[in-house]
């Protein structure tokens, strides 16, 4: 398959990635079964993660690696998990992408990598104080389209 990112886009992302601080683990979940966007999503994250040595991609099959998928609450493909990587320790922050992060979602994906790399939400003190005290699970699903 030809490259999905052209050289200009690569260069723009490299500039953003210069500010990455700490290592990030990206987990890709796909399947060998019918999946319209799995191979394209995998290729996209491979191209992106090649642009910084702070990004560490692992590739998984949701059926083969079912325990891992379950651990990360992944039940759709393609799915991406953006987590912290400290040494060998992977820390989940609950940051997920379901479906290919292209179009408008592409910048959201790049932003998520920068967010996790910075290990800081950037939110106001008031918001942080409230969120830290939440003791029941919250699921935020933000629907978007590529165009």
């Amino acid at each position: 398959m030809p490259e999905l990112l052209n050289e200009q886009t690569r260069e723009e992302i490299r500039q953003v990635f210069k500010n990455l601080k700490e290592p990030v683990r990206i987990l890709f979940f796909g399947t060998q079964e019918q999946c319209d966007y799995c191979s394209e999503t995998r290729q996209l994250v491979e191209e992106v993660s090649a642009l910084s040595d702070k990004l560490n991609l692992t590739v998984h099959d949701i059926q083969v690696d079912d325990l891992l998928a379950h651990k990360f609450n992944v039940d759709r493909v393609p799915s991406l998990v953006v987590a912290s990587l400290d040494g060998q320790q992977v820390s989940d922050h609950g940051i997920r992408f379901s479906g290919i992060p292209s179009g408008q979602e592409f910048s959201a994906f790049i932003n998520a990598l920068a967010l996790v790399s910075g290990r800081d939400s950037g939110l106001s003190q008031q918001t942080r104080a409230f969120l830290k005290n939440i003791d029941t699970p919250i699921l935020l699903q933000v629907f978007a389209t590529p165009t």
Partner: protein
Amino acid sequence: MALAHQFAMENPLIQAEAVEATEFRELAARHFVSGVPHTVINDGKSHLVGAVPEANLLAEIQRTLELA
């Protein structure tokens, strides 16, 4: 989208999922998603249509927790 991911950073109990609506049409239809962005909280307990500022998302989460 960035905002929901920022919220998730603050608490391991908060999960923020960017869903590509055209790939997961059934899920989008189940939550009556017509325009985007559309945020669904706790599988339909509440909804936010359109992009919203930090204070609004926080307020909606607070409201959802009070409903529970």
